């Protein structure tokens, strides 16, 4: 039974259609395994081979992978949420109530998005400290650390812009407190705040701006920098897994 399933999968992977899509056929050889990575537009950001030691749990705690996972969950839950959401006052808040009482699994969708967002912020911080403590930022990986800091800021800004969207008291006042801090920036403070909010207070314009930032601009920025981040892991010699063993 299992054999016939495997045989069927193998013959499927040898069909012309499959090969036209994936550019590599079947076969349990290292060449095929290498092609599976190298011939895939997403996977080719990674190298074909990795150090065995870098896969051990204690090296990375998989924190970078988990951060990517949280981001993917956020994209997958965020897109359906967009279908039920109007970035306008006070409709935004009414949409929250619709998610609770009208939309099938609306509560679950929103909960999952919210918890994943908190998880992603936590994971990004954890990833940063883990990378620091195992010394993985050292040359030649300096610039990837800098990209990581950019990704940390994008993550915080993504979470912050998402915080306003429910348009409840918690959202409104958290953003008010945060944006008031921007006014403290010398010389340009008031202007930066005006640019961000589209007004002097948190209002309907701010909601629309935060929506566009949260759903378009920041996710695109995140995807771009994540791609560079992954590509640099490969270019800088793979995941750092401590000094090589001394040759005895």
């Amino acid at each position, binding site marked *: 039974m299992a054999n016939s399933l495997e045989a069927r999968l193998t013959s499927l992977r040898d069909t012309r259609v499959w090969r036209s899509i994936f550019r590599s056929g079947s076969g349990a050889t*290292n060449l095929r*395994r*290498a092609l599976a*990575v190298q011939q895939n537009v997403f*996977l080719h950001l*990674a*190298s*074909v*081979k*990795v*150090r*065995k030691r870098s*896969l051990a749990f204690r090296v990375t705690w*998989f924190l970078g*992978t*988990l951060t990517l*996972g949280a981001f*993917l*969950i956020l994209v997958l839950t965020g897109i359906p949420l967009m279908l039920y959401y109007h970035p306008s006052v*006070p409709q935004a*808040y009414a949409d929250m109530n619709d998610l*609770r009482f009208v939309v099938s699994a609306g509560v*679950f969708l929103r*909960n*999952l*998005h919210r*918890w*994943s967002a908190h*998880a992603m912020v936590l994971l990004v911080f954890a990833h*940063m*400290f883990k990378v*620091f*403590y195992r010394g993985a*930022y*050292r*040359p030649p990986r*300096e610039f990837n650390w800098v990209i990581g*800091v950019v990704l*940390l800021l994008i993550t*915080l800004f993504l*979470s*912050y812009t998402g915080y306003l969207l429910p*348009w*409840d*008291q*918690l959202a*409104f*006042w*958290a953003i008010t*407190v945060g944006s008031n*801090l921007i*006014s*403290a*920036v*010398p010389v340009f*403070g008031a202007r930066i705040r005006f640019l961000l909010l589209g007004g002097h207070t948190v209002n309907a314009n701010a909601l629309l701006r935060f929506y566009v930032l949260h759903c378009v601009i920041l996710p695109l920025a995140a995807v771009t920098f994540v791609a560079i981040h992954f590509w640099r892991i490969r270019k800088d010699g793979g995941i750092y897994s401590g000094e*090589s*063993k*001394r*040759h005895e």
Partner: protein
Amino acid sequence: MSEHKDFAAAMDSDSRKTPVRVAFVTRRTSPHVKRQDDDYVMTFPEALFRGVVAVEVLALVLVVLALFWNASLEQLADPMQTPNPAKAPWYFLGLQELLHYFPPVVAGVLIPTLVVMALIVIPYFRINIEAEGLWTRNRAGRLRILAVVIAVFVVFLIVFDVFAVLIPSLLVAGLMFYSATNPAAPGRFHRWLASKPLSFWIMSWFLLEAGVLTLIGTFFRGPGWSFVMPWSGQI
């Protein structure tokens, strides 16, 4: 009496097949091989499958969270009605806590800017590349510098009444001085601390401060940013 050799010398005139390598061994260098190549495995499936399993576990945990705990939804936003206290998202509450002690331009602009800049330049400073213990060289001199820096910092924090920063800082300073001592029979913990470079101490201090300030801002601040207990129901 000839021993069995497990190698063979070979001459090859084809330079494309067998490139000739000439190593110059001076008196100061040693041809001793210090590093060995690591074992490699295929990314697909070894690394990829592990990553997928990790993400699946995360997804399961988050789904369980989402099934049993609802995201909060308060009343409709009302610009006329300020909640007391009005709090920023949790990851900014450390900064909001600092706002309680310092003027906004310091807590809201200067400190976050300095933190981000400090994070960016980490890999470009020698201090963060060195991996030897803080006290392995120039112990007396470094102790003196540390004592002065901490004294100035402590006076500064007392002047501004920043006990939320002062107490964790004193804890870290105490551990640093402890790691500088030379006990006759150092325990494992002491040896571990003594092996740590300065960058470790700075980052750990930052981590502890960020954690303490965020926790205080999240759980111990009530109306008018007064200090309350988490169970008082005033947060």
